[in-house]
Each structure stands twice: as C-alpha cells, then as structure tokens.
C-alpha cells in the first residue's frame, strides 16, 4: 500500500469488497450478490410483509409467477423477458423501479442480469437449510492441527492469505486463562507452563482449565448477557428480586458439568414440566424471567385498564424475544406489528409464540432442593386435596376404627389446648357512608357498591351465655376488590381508625361499651399499627400497606372478661374516617373465651357444632367429618415439618398472588394484534412456531390446550430437535464468538436475511454437527477450538509498524491487512479488550484479594438504604472496599437494572434490560477515569503493593519492587528501561501508585 494513498478511499473499497464481495468472473452467488440488492432496494414494497402489485421477491416461486400486471418479474434464463430487469432500467416515472431514490447502479443491474441468465438460482436462506456435516477440505497442509484449521486455511488460501505464526507460550497461557476462566494466570503458573518440557503441555492445560470451576462462572456470565439477566424489575418500581440468583448458579453448574446442550435448552424453556423430579430443572426456568418486569402496570394499576393488558403482551414479548434470540438467533420480535419484513416469519407465528407462554408470568416459585422431600410434599398436598371428595362420597376408609381411635385422642388433646374462635353471625349490617354490605356463606361480610370517602360499618351479633375474652377481626381478600383487597382503596389498603364493641344488657336494655386492653396484628403498616385502632383517636388508624392482596388479622383482648348470663347481642362499630376510600373490603369477626393469641386457629362452624355433640350421639357422617378435620390437621402438620422450600424467581404460573398480580391456572387468551395495536385485536391464536424449517412443522402438538406446561414442552422439544438447524448453528457460532471475539456469523442473535452471512459456512456447519452428534458437549467444542492452530496464532501484525523490515513475513501481513483488515478470515488471532468483569476480577486476583468461593445469594457491592417508595437507594461510592462483598467474583454481583454500577458501565457492562449477544468495546475518557480512580481498584493497588513490600522489605533503589510489580501484573519480566522508569516513579510516589499505572496499561487491559 502506498504511504500516500488516501486511506479513506481505500477503506471504502475494502468494505465494499467484503460487503458486496463479487468474485470477478466467478459465478453469481445469490446470497452474496443478489439478496443484498433485493433487501436494500425491493423488499420494502415487495417483501415478506408487502406485495405491492401482487409481487413478492422473497422466493423463487413468487418471483417467477405472474404479478398483477401479468408479467413475470423473473424468467429464469431469460433476462430480456424478465419484468424486473425492464423496470430497473426504465427511466420514466411510474415505470422505473425502485420508484424513489437513485436508480440501481449499472454494476448491480449487470449482476441481476447475469444471475437471471444463469438460471436465477435461489437457494433457501443459509440458516434454514438442513444441517449436515460437510466434508473437511483436503488441504494437504502441514499447518493444520485439526479439521477446523483445514476449513480456515482453505479460505485463507482462496483469498491469497496465510496464517500467522503461533503465539508464544506466555501469550497463549494468558489468552487461554481469560478466555476459559475470565481470570489471569499467576506468576507461578506462567513460569511452570513456559518451562514445561512436555509436547502435550498445552493440551493438558486446556483440560485442566476446562475442569476448573471458574470456567462455569465465565460462561454463565456470557449466558447472562443473552438472557438479559438482572435482579431488579427495571421499571419505575425497580424492586429487588431476592430469589433470582439460583438461576445464575444453575448456569454455572450446567457449564461446569457440561450439560448436553439440548437438555440445557429444554430445561430453560420447560424444565419444570419436562423434569418435575429435578429441582434444577425448575430453577432453569429462571431464564424466562431474566428480563425486566413492569410492576406498576402488572400489579399496581387497576386490572380493568388497557394499560394492564398492554403490559401482559409486552411481558410475553420479552419472553418470546429472549427465547428465540438466544436459542435460534431469530428476530421473530420483528413480526409483532406486521409480518417480518425480511424473514419468512408471519405475525401469526409471532403471536403463536406468545401463546406458548400464555400462562407464564414472572414470579417467585417455591421448590424443594431435595426431590424426595418434594415428592412427600406433593403426596401430602394430594391427600389434602382429596379429603373433601372422600367426605362427600362417604369414603368407607374414613370409618376405619384405628383412625377413629386416633381422632378420639386428637379430640381430647386438641380441645384442651386450642383456643376456639367462634365466628360471630353478623346481622343488621349498616354502612353510614353508603357502601353495600353483604353477608357471605363463610360468615364474612363483603363491602361493595359505591365507595364513599369515609365510612362507619355497624353490625350486630347474637351471642350465647358464657364468657368472652377476645375479639378477632379478619380482613379477607376478594376478587371484587382492587388489588384483591382486603381494602377498597385503589391500592388495596384500608384504615381502621377505631374499633368499638358494645354489649346489649338485655333485650331492649341499656348498652355498655367494652374496652380493649391490647391489640396485636399479623402485620402493621409502618406508622399505622393496630393499637391505633383502639387508642380512642380518630386521627390514627391500623393499615396494612404494602401487604395488600393477602388476608390479615388482628386480635383484640378485652380489658376485662365479658360474662353474660343470658343470650344477648353485641354491637360492633368499625370507624373508617381516614378518607380517600380507605375502607375495609371484606371482614369476619370471631370471639373466644380464652385469652386470645394471634396464632390460635379457629374452628369452622360445622366442626364447632359437631364437637358440641356428644360422641355417641354423632351420625356416621359427622364422625367422618371429624376424621377429615383430624386428617387435615395431621397432613398440614406433616407438611409444616418438612424442610422449608427454596424459592426461585422464574417464569411460571405457580407463584403466590401479590395484590392484583396473580397466577393464571389456564393459559390466557392471546390474540393477534393488528399493527401490534391493543385496540385492534383479531382472532385468538394457538401455540405455533416458525414455519421456515423444512424438516419441522410450525404447528406445536399440544394435546390439551389448557395444559400450559405442554405448550412450553412442545416448543422446547422443537428448539432442541436435532433437525432444527438454527439451534445448533446458533450455539456453535456463539462458542466460536466467545473464543475469537467475533462469530463466523457476525450477528450472533440474527441469522435472518438482514444479519450477516457466515464467513465460513462449511466450518459453521461442521462445528454445529460435531456438537449435535457428539453428545452435545460444549466442552468438546471448546477443546477442539482452542487446540486448533487457528486459535493459537499470534495476534500481532509487525507490518503495522510501518518499519521497512526486510522480512517477507512483514510484506505478507501488510497485504493481509489490505485484503482482510478486519481479520474476518482469521489470518491472525484477534486481540481482545478485557470485559468489565474480567478486568475487575483480574485486578483483585493479582492483588491476592479475590474470594474464589462459589454460588449463593448475590453480593451487594453498594450500600442499600430504603428508598422513598419501592426502589431502594443504592450508593456504589460508599461501599466498603475491603468488605467481603467486594472481594467476590463479578459474576456474583447483585445486578441492579436501573441503577447499574457506574464502574462496570464505563467498561461496557451492558444495560441488563437489553439482550446483548456481543459486548461493546468502548474507549472513553469516563472509562479512563473509572479505571484510574475507582476506590476499589485503588485499594487493590495498595493491597498488592503491601504484599510485594512485605516479601521484599528492603529495596533501596526500587528495582526489586519494580520487577515484582511487572511480574505480578503483566506476567512477564521487565526490561531495563522499564525498571528504570518504574523504580524512579515508585521511589517518589510509592509502589501502590506504580501498580495503579500498570493496572491501567494497555498491556494489562488487552489480551494478545
């Protein structure tokens, strides 16, 4: 290349070459030469989405059929009679195509002409083609170490390129360590490896590193980018998810144990349904819930709003996009508002995929770590569920004498110890404010109708002769209430300002107020505790926010036992004067003759009645009723004694309702939304997937449409099917990308027509089939790739120095830089900048402060304090730089979606609300400031300096310390010149600052 050539012009030429790379004189290649023209100039009107004039230029059949005009756009072999060619050459308005923008350049027209003349070959898009193992090129070279290299060198030779020499051992060791573990080698490891005389030293090293548990941590982090995993919701209510981390540990374990890839795929989409016996398979569905979640829209606003329905579609969109981008590199999300403009994906297919997840929400699901415990729990639950029908069918086994004996023992013990809450029969329900109060069968009262600002409920209740020591108020949920109640306020809350109890002395007699001594509730809203309901002040009250959507109860102990000789009546007043509609939605009142405790259970009225009947007077069905009551308590007690269940935040419909956010037992109705508009719903859709694969149908066989698990199982099986070429090509390409910094396909999550085509299609297919057909082992593929000669090449390009070196090598590489400056054909290794996690972990590792313990809840490398609302305050700057949280590997950081760590941000740690197939590699002043000045990094410099100084207490000229710092941080011996500068600096400014300089060097930040 001439020194004075305008490089810009040259670059444009180079890019034009690899973008449109026409092989002069060679045959026209549809994918390379024709499709880009159609995509850029034709498809916006004649693509998958639109067919203006009845013409679609997306496949050969449609392009060769007659359009509305009668003419065929393409007549294979006959360019002169092809309407397409006539129209692109036309000059008059209304004739010329495309109608807007510049005319097609003559070179493109010529390509179209040649292509049609040669028969208009129109092969299926590469990514959808059936996958079979291509033959390894017979290159007969002595460079290749394994089949990968033969594919690579064949392409290099074709382009007039040659591979670079291998990197030296120290370089390889550092490369391999960061690549497979995300950590640097220690000085000791470097020395050992460089001096290892064994010819198989490298292969042995690869095996060791693949067996190292840090490998799983490294690859889990890659996968978290794809899944857009973080541990908060990511919207205005960015609530922390305390149970998201088990999914991260699942990933680490899966990569470490080399889980067969198909199983890995299946588990993440439908593990709970496919492998109910496997707790880890349940945890795997954390994948579906990795993305953001709109708490305001899905939990807090009213259920009857359009905003709620929009949010459900958007949440499923997030899940569909995650699944399809990650596993099959498909941009199916482009078909939300219209058919995919470029790929054969219809809107029906997109909404069919939404239907697969029609019952899925993101929530906390309980599971048993020990499957045997889980089985036992399931058995108990099943036995419990069966009891009502056993009673109804008068199951003879309930008459078993042995059971009767146990019931008798229980009755004697239990009746003696338990407080018996007697529900009051409430009558004469009066609402002063105008609510409608209705008695329900279970003795509770539901408030409905218009909602006044304030209200006073007054109820009467007959009582028998006896003693009363306590009154209990249960607040119950109901589907008719906002957030399911128990309050009537829009947020589900209520405020009970005063509870007052009166006893009517005798029929028609005076009434007397009964005072309370104390009150206790299962939950008190901050500043609104239950004692304020009996403090005689109308300004104070009991509230239950934010624990709405769940029942609550409070018990009130009478100041003195109330003893009545004859049956009489109670009058109870519930004062709710706070305003804003803070009213009780549903409640029940009970009394007890014992000193009340919150934990006491109540008796259902029928059971209380039976217990009141003398044993011998009971009917057989009454005895069975008692047996069922006993068994219910017995099973519940057994279940309570099981080890507590673990929780994972995942995609499921088995989570506890939270306010108005509740699981749906059946799949929800999903409709195709015309133009993606919620106001234009069309027909209901059934589960469906892509139709573009020749060996797999788009229909998903789901026997029972109500079985939500079966929908996901069908998709999971479609994804993991050996006949699904996308899945295997996608993962093979990703693995390649992680080792080389760029995939054979440069758009790893887009294998569609607008993505880039593979540079080495045969190699990609070879890798994909190797993975698929050899036990689906990722580690096998890693091993193969990193032991290839391609991977072991040097990354340097001496020619780039511009020194007029005599070496032929240099000339060769100079031309390589011209032919393939971006190294798409791998004539050398790519140099990589450390990603955020690797840089941070490496600094701690070198400083000797990295805590290598694995797994468990995420560590908060920030100070968290309660926020004004749901989102906490998060302060990274004040975090303890010496604290244990700080010393864990970055993969264990608690990932806060809307308040990310600014240090990690500066190093391109992605926005966790987006899917990130490829990390950015920015270089910015803010990044320089971060690596220079971050408190934690500066602290590690001090730690390392202290260690070096401890080991070498006397070093008057600073040379020893300088040598040690370079050895530790850069992993090599320093030159004399470097020692001079470094020692000079550290004598003036200290060793810690010298370490800081080295940690900030390009040599540390980049991996050759």
């Amino acid at each position: 290349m001439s020194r004075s050539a305008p490089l810009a012009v040259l670059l444009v030429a180079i890019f034009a070459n690899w973008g449109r790379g026409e092989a002069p004189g060679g045959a026209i290649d549809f994918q390379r030469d024709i499709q880009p023209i159609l995509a850029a100039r034709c498809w916006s009107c004649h693509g998958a989405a639109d067919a203006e004039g009845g013409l679609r230029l997306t496949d050969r059949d449609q392009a060769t059929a007659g359009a509305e005009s009668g003419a065929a756009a393409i007549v294979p072999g006959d360019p002169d009679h092809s309407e397409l060619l006539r129209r692109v050459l036309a000059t008059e308005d209304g004739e010329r195509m495309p109608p807007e923008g510049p005319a097609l350049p003559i070179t493109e027209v010529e390509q179209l002409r040649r292509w049609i003349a040669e028969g208009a070959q129109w092969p299926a898009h590469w990514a959808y083609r059936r996958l079979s193992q291509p033959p390894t090129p017979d290159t007969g070279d002595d460079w290749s170490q394994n089949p990968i290299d033969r594919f690579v060198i064949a392409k290099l030779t074709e382009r007039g390129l040659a591979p670079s020499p291998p990197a030296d051992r120290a370089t390889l060791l550092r490369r391999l360590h960061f690549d497979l573990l995300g950590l640097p080698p220690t000085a000791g490891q470097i020395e050992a490896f460089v001096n290892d005389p064994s010819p198989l030293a490298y292969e042995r090293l690869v095996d060791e590193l693949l067996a190292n548990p840090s490998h799983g941590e490294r690859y889990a982090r890659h996968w978290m980018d794809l899944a857009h995993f973080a541990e908060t919701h990511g919207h205005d209510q960015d609530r922390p998810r305390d149970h998201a981390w088990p999914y991260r540990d699942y990933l680490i374990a899966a990569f470490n144990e080399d889980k067969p890839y198909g199983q890995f795929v299946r588990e993440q989409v439908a593990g709970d349904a496919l492998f109910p016996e496997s707790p880890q398979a349940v945890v795997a569905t954390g994948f579906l819930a990795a993305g953001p979640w709109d708490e305001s829209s899905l939990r807090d606003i009213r259920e009857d709003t359009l905003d709620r329905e929009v949010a459900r579609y958007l949440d499923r969109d997030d899940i569909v996009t995650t699944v399809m981008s990650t596993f099959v590199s498909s941009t199916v999300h482009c078909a939300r508002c219209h058919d995919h403009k470029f790929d054969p994906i219809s809107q029906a297919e997109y909404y069919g995929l939404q239907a697969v997840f029609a019952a899925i929400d993101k929530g906390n699901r309980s599971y048993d770590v020990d499957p045997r415990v889980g089985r036992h729990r399931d058995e108990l639950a099943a036995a419990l569920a069966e009891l009502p029908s056993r009673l109804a069918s008068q199951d003879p086994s309930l008459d078993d004498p042995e059971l009767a004996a146990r019931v008798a023992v229980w009755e004697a013990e239990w009746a003696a110890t338990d407080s018996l809450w007697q529900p009051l029969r409430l009558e004469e329900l009066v609402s002063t404010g105008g609510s409608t109060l209705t008695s329900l069968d279970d003795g509770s009262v539901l408030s409905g109708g218009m909602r006044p600002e304030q209200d006073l409920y007054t109820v009467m209740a007959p009582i028998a002769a006896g003693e009363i020591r306590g009154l209990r108020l249960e607040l119950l949920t109901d589907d008719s209430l906002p957030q399911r109640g128990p309050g009537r306020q829009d947020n589900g809350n209520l405020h009970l300002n005063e509870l007052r109890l009166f006893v009517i002395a005798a029929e028609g007699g005076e009434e007397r107020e009964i005072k309370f001594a104390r009150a206790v509730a299962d939950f008190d809203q901050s500043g609104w505790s239950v004692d304020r309901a009996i403090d005689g002040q109308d300004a104070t009250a009991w509230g239950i926010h934010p624990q709405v959507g769940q029942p609550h109860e409070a018990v009130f102990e009478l100041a003195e036992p109330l003893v009545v000789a004859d049956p009489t009546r109670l009058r109870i007043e519930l004062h709710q004067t706070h305003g804003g509609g803070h009213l009780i939605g549903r409640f029940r009142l009970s009394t007890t003759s014992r000193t009340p405790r919150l934990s006491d259970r109540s008796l259902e009225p029928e059971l209380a009645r039976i217990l009141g009947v003398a044993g011998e007077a009971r009917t057989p069905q009454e005895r069975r009723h008692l047996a069922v009551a006993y068994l219910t308590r017995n099973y519940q007690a057994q279940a309570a004694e099981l080890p507590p269940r673990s929780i994972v935040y995942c995609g499921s419909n088995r989570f506890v309702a939270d306010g108005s956010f509740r699981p749906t037992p059946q799949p929800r109705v999903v409709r195709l939304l015309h133009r993606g508009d919620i106001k234009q719903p069309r027909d209901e859709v059934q589960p469906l997937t892509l139709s573009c694969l020749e060996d797999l149908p788009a229909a998903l066989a789901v026997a029972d449409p109500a079985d939500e698990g079966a929908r996901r199982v069908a998709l999971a099986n479609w994804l993991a099917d050996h006949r699904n070429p996308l899945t295997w090509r996608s993962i093979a390409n990703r693995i390649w990308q992680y080792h080389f910094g760029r995939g054979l396909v440069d758009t790893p999550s887009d294998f569609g027509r607008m993505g880039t085509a593979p540079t080495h299609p045969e190699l990609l297919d070879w890798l994909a089939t190797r993975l698929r057909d050899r036990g689906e082992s990722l580690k096998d593929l890693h091993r193969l790739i990193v032991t290839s000669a391609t991977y072991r090449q040097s990354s340097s390009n001496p020619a780039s120095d511009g020194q007029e070196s005599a070496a032929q090598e240099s000339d060769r590489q100079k031309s390589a830089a011209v032919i393939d400056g971006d190294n798409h054909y791998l004539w050398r290794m790519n140099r990589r900048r450390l990603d955020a996690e690797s840089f941070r972990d490496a600094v701690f590792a070198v400083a000797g402060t990295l805590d290598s313990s694995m797994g468990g809840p995420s560590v908060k490398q920030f100070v968290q304090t309660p926020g004004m609302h749901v989102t906490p305050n998060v302060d990274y700057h004040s975090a303890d730089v010496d604290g244990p949280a700080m010393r864990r590997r970055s993969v264990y950081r608690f990932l806060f979606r809307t308040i990310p760590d600014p240090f990690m941000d500066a190093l391109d740690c992605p926005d966790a609300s987006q899917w990130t197939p490829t990390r950015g590699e920015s270089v910015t002043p803010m990044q320089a400031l971060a690596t220079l000045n971050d408190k934690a990094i500066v602290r590690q410099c001090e730690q390392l300096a202290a260690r070096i100084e401890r080991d070498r207490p006397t070093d008057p000229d600073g040379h020893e310390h300088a040598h040690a710092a370079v050895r530790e941080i850069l992993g090599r011996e320093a030159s004399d010149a470097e020692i001079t500068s470094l020692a000079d600096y550290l004598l003036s400014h200290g060793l810690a600052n010298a370490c800081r300089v080295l940690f900030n060097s390009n040599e540390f930040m980049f991996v050759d």
Partner: protein
Amino acid sequence: MNVEREPSIGSATVSRRELLWQAGGGLGGLALAQLLAEESRAQDTAAVGQPNAGQPELGLGDKGLGDGLHHPPKVRRVLQLFMNGGVSQMDTFDHKPELDCRHGEAIDFGITAAVTSEVGKIMKSPFPFRQHGESGRWVSDVFPHLAGCVDDLAFLMAMASKTNVHGPASYLQNTGFVSPGFPCMGAWISYGLGRIADDLPTFVVLPDHRGLPYNNGGNFSPGFLPAAHQGVIIKPNAPEPIGNLTPPASERITAAGEADGLRLLAEFNRRHLEGRADDSRLGARIASFELAAKMQASAPEVLDLSRETQATRCEYGLDDETTGPFARNCLTARRMLERGVRFVQVWSGMGGPAKNWDNHSDIQTELPFIARSVDKPIAALLRDLKQRGLLEDTLVVWTTEFGRMPFTQGATGRDHNGGTFVTWLAGAGVKAGTTHGASDEFSYQAVEGVTQVHDLHATILHLLGIDHERLTFRHNGIDRRLTDVHGHVIREILG
C-alpha cells in the same frame, strides 16, 4: 474542523485524526471513532462500524454550526427540562373554562376507571388563569415567572402518550419505546453528532437533588448504543458531583504523582504499541487518558458557581430554600452548554409518591409546592441564555411523561392521563410565541394537532441537522431509530 486525511502509519506521534482513519484496519474502528469523534462523526462510523448503514456521507465541515449530519442545523445543543411525574396540564398551561362550568358534575368519558382510581367528578382548576405577553397565552398562577416568558416559547398543546403508567411513559418520552433498554435521546444525539468540547462530556444529566426519577438511570441509558454515549450523571449538590473524576482522598495520591503517573503510563503504552500499532483501540486508549486529564482540569471550573454574580444568583433564586437546588442545576446547565456540552437534561422531581409532579392526592397543595421550585429558576435560565446569545443555537425543551385527568381522584387529586399534556420549546429554530394543537373542552384527550413524542424527537433531531429516519443503529435484527417507525417533524412551530 481541519481533517488530516493523509495517514502516516507508524510515526511515533499519531494524531487523533490519523487514528480515526486507521480505524478501519482493526476491530477498534468504532471504539476509536466514538472517542475522537467531533462534529459529523456518525457518518464515519456508519461506514466503518455498521454493515448496513449505507454509503458514508463524508460531509465534514465546521462552518458555524457545521453542516449537520443530513442537512444544515439550526441548533447545536439541547437543554431538556424534564418534569417527573406528569404535570397537570389543566392546572398550568391548558386553560379550560368548561371545567369551571361543569365543576362537580359526573361526565361519562367512556372509561370505567383511570389507571389507579375510579372516575371522579369534574374538578376545575383551583388556580386562577391569566393571559400573558403579546401572544396572550393563558398561564395559571402556579407559574408567575414563567408566565413572563411566554412570548419566547412555542407550545405543543396536544402531546399524547400511549401509556398512563410512569415507568413505560418515562421510557417512552426518553427513548421512544415503552420498554427498558433503549437508548435515550441524549445518547442518540451523542451518537449522531459527537462532542463539541473535548474536555467535557457530550451528554450530561442533572437529576433532582432529592433523588433519581421514575426508572432511575434507565431514562439516561445508552441502551444498545456504545457506552461512549451514556449520560454522565452530575450532582452539583452532592459532595462528589462527578463519580471517579478524582482519585479517592489518600496521602499517597498527590497532584505531582498523578501527572508523573500519566506520563509513565503513556511511556508503557507507547512501548506496548510497538508491533501493535495497527490496532487503533490501543492508540485510542492512550488518547482517552489525555482527554480524561483535560476533563479533570475543566469540570471543577464548570461546577464552581462562585464565579457567578450576586445578580445572577438572585435571578435564579440560588440562595432561596425553595428554588435553590433546582436553580443550582439550571445554572450548572447553562455553564455546561456554554462550554460545549451537547445535551443537558435537568430533572425536577424524583420517583415515588411525593415531591414530584405526580399529584394524586391534592392538586391544591402538591402542585404549587413543586411548581414553585422550578418557576423562577427556569424563567431566569431562559433570560440568561437569551442575554448571552446562547439561545441562538440552543434549544430548550420543557416536558413531562403525561398529563392528568380533568376529574378528581379522591377528593382533590388527579390521576394519570396519557390523553393530553403540554410541552414547550424555546430557542433556536423555534417560532416563539406560537402554539400547536389543542385538547378537547375538558383537556381529557388531544384532538387537534395531536403530537406524539416521536414527533417531538423528530423535530429536535431535525433542528440538529439530523433526519430522524436516517439516524439508525442495527440491534438484534432491526435498524433501530429514536423514533421507532413513527415521527413527523412539527413544522408548525419551526421558525
């Protein structure tokens, strides 16, 4: 700008521009371009970094405002004032006498409920409205100072949002999308136009002193754009206004040590460059430390308001308890714009149930509280920008995420309403004293000249010399735009 197009590969001192041109030679093209880019940078990277970005348009130039990315710009920098929570339009700028007439009536709007509450009775504004200026704009008494500026403003009276929920609505106004993870306008502008000054960030965010808005930093995310375009959060009221600008306090760390350290670092990096000079990222990173040092030198001066006159302090209300914190942000914003920050976003209100514009409980007390804190500072800022001539190439945009309902929530509050709200613009390229669009008689829905945020974004980009349909970034299979697939330039308000 003068562009040295002749590369001299291998010379010991590589100029930044040279590095940029070498960018094509390695993976680092994009990174380098981001770092060094100045005006018209996106064309370069479009050619280098993106396979489908089309032909590069190498229209570099520095004639006044520059040539813009796609056409000559009117605006060089943008200041956005974002009122977090949903400003009540009918209590501020959207005067509706009909509400006075129908106060207390139940009107059927065809909805069963607002987003968090039942449909209440019609509520008139508790604040008197008056006409102001030559344009005769109606402004309520909650904005006495801003009322004096109406002849400089262009009002969009019929803004509409497709959502009524803070999270999605704030994302929509900032990024054009209701879901998280998309780049905000500031990031797009940084990506499209690059930096003006090399010693200050391109895109700065000044949050409310009480805390971050709904969605926190999600509103200022670069999304999938390179990290170089992220908003730099500056908190002028905090002890450490810019994170990591300076090293942690330590006896070991001295100014001399820092300067010597950077020299030593450069020495190591230059040596490392031998045999690797074709990798532009390495050179870019060397340059990044030089830029960082410049920023360290410049930033404290920008934040130092002690150089402002007492008159200015008074004007902004800097020493007043109510207006002080927001005034500090406004004044800092002006200093930033003056010194070449491209895009400044100033927030009023934090996320949560109070101390913002989300006045669910009581318009009569909640709105004046927050309105007072911004009224005087914004009016002062507008006058100040004008006086200094900055308005000639600066655009000021005042906006929020949605409006509020004409009927009550509870006794005297108002619920969210994406149906209509008000935005105003001022400054370069804008027809002052004009209005566009109108809501219905209740200010319930926008009915005339309905304006979506995509139109607003398209207009802002247009003024900056950018065709919003051509500023794209390929992500996950789609050429993404700030304006999604929507957006029309609002010509009616352009001067």
